């Protein structure tokens, strides 16, 4: 399976796959031809959706915005969705997911989208990307994904948006779009940053609030105000229990907000959330951890459940296929032959039998064998 292919089972496509397998030992004849053109194409060959870089704008000394022009086959997006960027970093294909921070209206008008990216000091991709794009103005871009959007049925509901750190990006998209649509739904945005003055897009958000009477923006910082607590909501948005809630930010914030809302009796279907950054591996379960057996490399690891199976496998030198590392792109799908794993993204426990799992968000609950 390739990055761009989806498993489809129409008779024609199956026949084509068989034919291609017989002729070139690959699911698609395209795979066979692509290496010939690789010097002229970049990331992923022609099957890969691409975008051109229009500009890089620094929002602060740690956050930059890429202004991208997707090519013709890009199908657009809904405010709140994210994309995968594909880059080649030192010979290795690497995928990273980012929420789109601009509005669909801007895409229709100018054909561009914006991604706002915080430089992760320990990361390898985010600090490197701005320089790399100076040389190659072209970058792999997936279609928009994700269901963190305001559904039509909820369009008229009053909203509470809670953002933390770079988790503001999808909200910027949603609010800018609402502004463009003259959508006057009552919206309160409570936005946490670690310090005063570190709020991204503070000016733009305040401008939206000024121009749109129904939108209120509350900027809080954990240094002075502390982490999210009920009193913040009571003070700035007393009717929060009646609203649809949208949460985006680090896992601690999401968890805190969900617990708080549940305690106040807000129904689950009123709460929408998007994890930002790496999927958290935090397992309360006492049975987390166990011996992980890698079938193909014959290696075995004693895992304590604090790291994903992907990290564990890589720590002993195995290189399973991987992608976004936050449970989104399914590149790291791998056969688990036995044992139980916990999907930290969904919280679901697997069965004990053979099945495909996502290595990057799975932790072992007891002994596990995987085909990696």
């Amino acid at each position: 399976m390739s990055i761009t292919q989806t498993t489809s089972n129409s008779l024609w496509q199956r026949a084509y796959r068989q034919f291609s397998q017989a002729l070139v030992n690959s699911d698609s004849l395209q795979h066979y031809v692509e290496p010939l053109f690789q010097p002229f194409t970049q990331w992923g060959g022609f099957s890969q959706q691409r975008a051109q870089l229009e500009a890089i704008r620094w929002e602060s000394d740690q956050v930059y915005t890429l202004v991208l022009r997707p090519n013709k086959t890009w199908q657009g997006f809904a405010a709140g969705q994210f994309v995968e960027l594909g880059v080649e970093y030192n010979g290795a294909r690497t995928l990273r997911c980012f929420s789109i921070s601009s509005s669909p209206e801007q895409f229709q008008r100018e054909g561009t989208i914006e991604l706002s990216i915080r430089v992760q000091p320990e990361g390898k991709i985010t600090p490197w990307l701005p320089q790399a794009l100076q040389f190659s103005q072209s970058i792999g871009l997936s279609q928009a994904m994700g269901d963190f959007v305001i559904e039509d049925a909820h369009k008229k509901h009053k909203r509470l948006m809670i953002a933390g750190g770079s988790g503001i990006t999808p909200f910027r998209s949603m609010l800018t779009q609402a502004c463009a649509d003259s959508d006057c739904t009552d919206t309160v945005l409570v936005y946490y940053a670690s310090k005063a003055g570190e709020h991204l897009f503070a000016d733009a958000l305040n401008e939206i609030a000024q121009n749109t009477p129904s939108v209120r923006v509350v900027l809080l910082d954990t240094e002075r105000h502390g982490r999210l607590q009920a009193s913040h909501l009571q003070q700035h948005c007393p009717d929060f229990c009646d609203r649809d809630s949208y949460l985006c930010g680090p896992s601690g914030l999401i968890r805190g907000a969900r617990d708080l809302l549940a305690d106040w009796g807000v129904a689950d279907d009123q709460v929408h959330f998007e994890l930002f950054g790496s999927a958290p591996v935090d397992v309360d379960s006492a049975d987390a951890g166990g011996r992980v057996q890698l079938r193909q490399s014959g290696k075995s690891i004693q895992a304590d459940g604090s790291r994903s199976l992907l990290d564990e496998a890589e720590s002993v030198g195995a290189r399973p296929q991987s992608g976004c590392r936050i449970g989104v792109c399914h590149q790291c799908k791998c056969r688990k032959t036995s044992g139980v794993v916990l999907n930290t993204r969904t919280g679901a426990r697997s069965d004990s039998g053979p099945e495909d799992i996502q290595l990057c968000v799975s932790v072992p609950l007891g002994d596990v064998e995987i085909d990696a």
Partner: protein
Amino acid sequence: MTKQLTSQQLDALAKDLDAIREEAMSQVGERDAQYIRKILRLQRLTEIGGRGLLFLGFNPVAWLAGSTLLGVSKILDNMEIGHNVMHGQYDWMNDPRLHSNTFEWDTACDSDSWRRTHNYEHHTYTNVLGKDRDYGYGILRLTHEDEFRPEHRVQFISYVLLSVFFQWGVSLHEMEADRLYKGEVKLRDKKPLMKAILKKGGRQVFKDYLFFPLLTGPLFFQTLLGNALANLIRNLWSSTIIFCGHFPEGVQTFDESVCDNESRGHWYYRQMLGSANFQGGRWLHIMSGHLSYQVEHHLFPDVPAHRYVEMSPKVQAVAEKYGLPYNTGSFGRQYLTVLKRIIEHSRPAPKKLAAA
């Protein structure tokens, strides 16, 4: 008898070799990606060129050139690309075309079963008699420690046949016919493998002996013969390369007992004594998938193989430091000793050796 190392020496050996590995792995990146892509392009060009020339198969020169090019393409696909990719040497590139999980090669042997037997059995139990099924491929007797059976008298003929039909031999090798015969494995358990072998073999036959011949219309038989020649070239070449890796003079075998609680140092030690290199030019190395550096390959199976060239002097220095042999010689010399060994062991052990 080769020098025995104490367990402290073995630990030190492991440390030295690990350091060579670490140094190479820390540099892996862009250069390796560009290298393997270049080889991939070359493989595509030779295959397209070869199959294209066979459309002119009415001309004997074009026919021969086409078949040879196709043979070269299959060799590149199997040796420098397939074998190395399936060892996971390029997994870090995260390219589905070059990932060990998904790669499939242009040979009758199904890659899934090969990955298991080759990567695991052969590379773990290298040259351990009774454990490494690649030692003599269950057909040839290459050491007097192996029991003599009457069929070994004609093993030179078996060897030639194995080389000619190498892709099918390797494919059927996975069936473990000898163990099936002895009842150690059940036929029932081999059903899925049998299906995989038939499927993969069927595809290869379809491609080389039906589809492309039919595509050339009136040249059906010329193309069929050309494809057969290409497969033959690849079979003879890969069999020769592989035999030169473990069966030349001076390569040692080991008893099953060494595998119990084996240290990493001893594993390294066994890999060094159980493999042999041969020397030659850059293209000999590329066409052999750098198995001309079999010693380095067995020490560092997941390091991109083109790096063995620069790792080799360091490995030789380590061998010298511990007084271990580093088996190498010209391609011709190493191959002659393989042939000699096959012939020598087609007779029972001379009395005095048997007594000792």
